[in-house]
């Protein structure tokens, strides 16, 4: 590709991304009242989206071949334990990631 073609391609990638981020706000601008059913969705979607993101982040975990998703599962359990104990986000992340690193780099290597 020429430089110009690359810029156009990156522009196309950006345009598609921008549409997915802006369309809801264009459809429901601030001065218009938001339909009630959508208010209800808007109250619920943030939490459903978090649930979706957790699975999305784990979409490439291999459950049927080695290491059978065990590093991910054990690390998430570790996070659950640390987090219900201290409720400190950075501590829980550090503990979970450390567990994961040990599991994928040492135990299941």
């Amino acid at each position, binding site marked *: 590709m020429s430089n110009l073609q690359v810029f156009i391609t990156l522009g196309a990638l950006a345009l598609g991304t921008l549409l997915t981020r802006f369309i*809801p706000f264009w459809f429901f601008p601030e001065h218009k009242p938001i339909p009630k059913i959508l*208010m209800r969705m*808007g109250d619920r979607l*943030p939490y*459903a989206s*978090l649930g979706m993101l957790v699975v999305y982040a784990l979409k490439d975990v291999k459950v049927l071949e080695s290491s059978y998703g065990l590093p991910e599962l054990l690390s*998430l359990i570790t996070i659950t334990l640390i*987090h219900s104990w201290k409720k400190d986000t950075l501590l829980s*992340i550090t503990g979970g990631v450390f567990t*994961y690193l040990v599991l994928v780099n040492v135990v299941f290597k």
Partner: protein
Amino acid sequence: MKLKAFKAAFPITLPVLTGYLFLGIAFGLLMHQSGFPILWTFLSSSVVFAGALQFAGVSILASAFNPLAAFTLAILVNIRHLFYGLSMLTRFKGLGFKKNFVIYMMADEAFSINAAAKIPEGVDSAWFYFFTSLLCYLYWNLASLTGHLVGEFIPSSIVGLDFVLTALFYILFLNQWNVKAHRPYLLVGLFSTLISRLVLGRSNFLLGAMVLIIGLLWIIPDQGVHHE
């Protein structure tokens, strides 16, 4: 006002910094190894600003010119962002000139920390959202440029540091789990996506999951919390 918002925003972006450092460096290194100039890395990170899509974009940039295919891929890969916008419609009201910027920056990480954030009393929410978004954006750009320039010299023998972002999403999920009224919605998101991933496979599951989520959220009765 700005300083106060920055002080509230900065700590919650630290996990994103860690995750972005690793993923961004990996992206910059991949661009460099594909033989692309650093300008392309810079433009991809600063203009497209969508991690998963930028990785997919590397092979697009290496193949024949087809902007329509690139555009379609961008929509498909990022279709989940529609949910983020719908989630933040009311919370992003009255952000003024910062609004378009905050929406532009709404990748998974900025969205998830903004959606889960309990903004402290007395902190201006517009500036808070502005700073979380700006910081995430700067981290990503810094990391991808670093990866392009010096990625080769960073030892890559340790794998799995990108788990930071998975851990972050999961902890934000756990924090919401403590609010009983949110549990049904968290479960709807979790299981709709899980089932969709198992049934539809790796490349098509998000759209199916989103349809399922909308349907289920539609029919679940109120949890005794009214916002009217």
